[in-house]
């Protein structure tokens, strides 16, 4: 019996010829990512009582969650991280303003196919878009990884997801993955890995693949892997050091299940409050009034996301009474968006541009919602209170739907605004 991509990566990382789903392995981690919660990780690390981190070159830290610091506690946390990395010789550090961890880590060349990556952030699954086995862990585990470089992992079963069909105009990767989560539920892939196949995925840009690998976590996925192809290699070639060695599944690999989706007739999708699997076609929620429109996040703050929004907003004004917040996912994306004129389009439309980072996604700062307010957002979670008051509401949608809705002041099908 052959192996899935996850089985192959975990076998290699644990020094074994082969492993099977269900087996528990002690694996050697190739990359350990943390963000602002490195403050908590480093505090726990110090309590372990070892002096040195296992390998400073395999640790990367990016400040993005409360960047720049919004309260004194956050400023103190950032300060403690800056001190820690100096003390322990960690050079892979990106301070306030560089961008969101899940954008910066691939952009700066830390991700390669076949790697085992762990991060103290649930959306670490994003790097699966490059063919890595990449998953979220907690702070205590990360402290132990910093100390030993090792972690126990249960080899997950894999769902083979085949997505076919040519998407309609203004229908994007976000709509595809929201639709899938709506179908399989918020725990539809819990404890499991996903491998994505099919012509739709092949036709997706690297950015779109990052969107599906990122958002798949909201179905509980442990890893969400797109097998590497030319697009992957082209993106990585000038960014990474050393050889790129893609890992593919065997023809006779054992999948827990196979699912097929035809997305050719898919209309834009919206995840309604307060769970990500409460997904409806936009036609069922059109007309719901909004107070805020958020374009950004590790799910949808990349150049193609800003591009489609700029196309919709060009020469238009956002509705009176609506706040539109735009957050480019990284400095690199921000600069390119400036060059291409997208930022000017957003500003003239009446939007507020926030520095690269997580922005209001997790309800910490930069556009939190008051009670009774409603946002449409290209972020990845709509849990009660996620973006501010527990009495506010978040509707998740694609950048196109967010931009179109900002113009109308209510949820709207972007195909109508453009057409």
């Amino acid at each position, binding site marked *: 019996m052959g192996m899935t991509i996850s089985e192959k990566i975990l076998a290699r990382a644990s020094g074994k010829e082969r492993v099977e789903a269900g087996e528990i392995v002690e694996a050697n981690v190739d990359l350990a990512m943390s963000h602002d919660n490195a403050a908590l990780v480093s505090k726990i690390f110090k309590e372990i009582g070892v002096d040195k981190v296992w390998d400073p070159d395999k640790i990367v830290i990016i400040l993005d969650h409360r960047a720049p610091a919004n309260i004194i506690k956050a400023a103190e946390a950032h300060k403690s991280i800056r001190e820690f990395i100096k003390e322990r010789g960690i050079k892979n550090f990106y301070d306030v303003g560089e961008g969101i961890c899940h954008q910066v880590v691939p952009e700066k060349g830390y991700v390669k196919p076949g790697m085992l990556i762990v991060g103290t952030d649930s959306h670490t699954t994003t790097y699966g878009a490059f063919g890595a086995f990449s998953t979220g862990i907690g702070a205590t585990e990360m402290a132990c990884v910093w100390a030993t470089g090792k972690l126990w992992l249960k080899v997950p079963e894999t769902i083979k997801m085949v997505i076919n069909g040519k998407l309609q105009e203004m229908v994007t990767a976000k709509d595809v993955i929201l639709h899938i989560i709506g179908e399989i539920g*918020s725990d539809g892939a819990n404890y499991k890995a996903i491998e994505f196949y099919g012509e739709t995925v092949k036709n997706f840009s690297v950015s779109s693949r990052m969107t599906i690998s990122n958002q798949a976590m909201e179905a509980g996925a442990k890893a969400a892997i797109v097998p590497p192809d030319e697009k992957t290699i082209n993106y990585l070639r000038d960014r990474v050091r050393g050889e790129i060695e893609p890992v593919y599944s065997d023809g006779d690999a054992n999948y827990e299940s196979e699912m097929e989706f035809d997305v050719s007739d898919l209309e834009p999708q919206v995840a309604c409050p307060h769970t990500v699997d409460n997904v409806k076609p936009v036609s069922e929620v059109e007309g719901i009034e909004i107070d805020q429109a958020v374009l950004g996040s590790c799910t949808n703050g990349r150049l193609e996301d800003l591009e489609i929004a700029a196309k919709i907003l060009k020469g238009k004004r956002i509705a009176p009474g609506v706040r539109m917040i735009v957050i480019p996912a990284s400095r690199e994306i921000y600069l390119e968006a400036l060059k291409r004129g997208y930022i000017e389009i957003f500003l003239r439309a009446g939007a507020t541009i926030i520095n690269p980072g997580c922005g209001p996604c997790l309800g910490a700062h930069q556009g939190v919602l008051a009670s009774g307010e409603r946002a449409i957002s290209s972020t990845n979670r709509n849990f009660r209170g996620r973006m501010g008051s527990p009495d506010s509401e978040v509707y998740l949608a694609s950048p196109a739907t967010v931009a179109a809705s900002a113009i109308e002041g209510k949820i709207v099908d972007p195909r109508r605004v453009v057409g």
Partner: protein
Amino acid sequence: MKIRGKVIKYGDDINTDVIFPGRYLAITEPEEMAKHAMEDLDKDFLEKVKERKIIVAGKNFGCGSSREQAAMCLKYAGVEAIIAKSFARIFFRNAINQGLPIIECKEASSDIEDGEEIEIDLDKGVIKNLSNKKEYAFKPLPDFIQEIINAGGLLNHIRKRLNR
């Protein structure tokens, strides 16, 4: 290890944002985290947990963020065990690493009511409802995970291992 106590019952998909809201994530002291436990789900939680130490919930408990604060705040608020139909994977690991016993048991999760008194035998894999004497079997956690829980969490466990 046996755990005995009264139950606080919740539903499906209790997510990390309602267990520990993102606005408090800059907090690094567990005792302070505990003050915000379940803040966006149940305003009376801190009052309830003084008397009732076991949470019983539906499917996918702890879904969402990797924030370990979600497990930490519950533990330091006084929760001694959580029974659910299923747990989201990162919360599952975080709870173990905090030394907080978690049990997957569909039947117990459906049957046991708010306020009932139960006893959990972690080694034998049995939950007893002391209110009506009904018993439920569950698969005990693997030995190496029980070792982490018995050590009081991964931090103590790894300290022992590294200093051996």
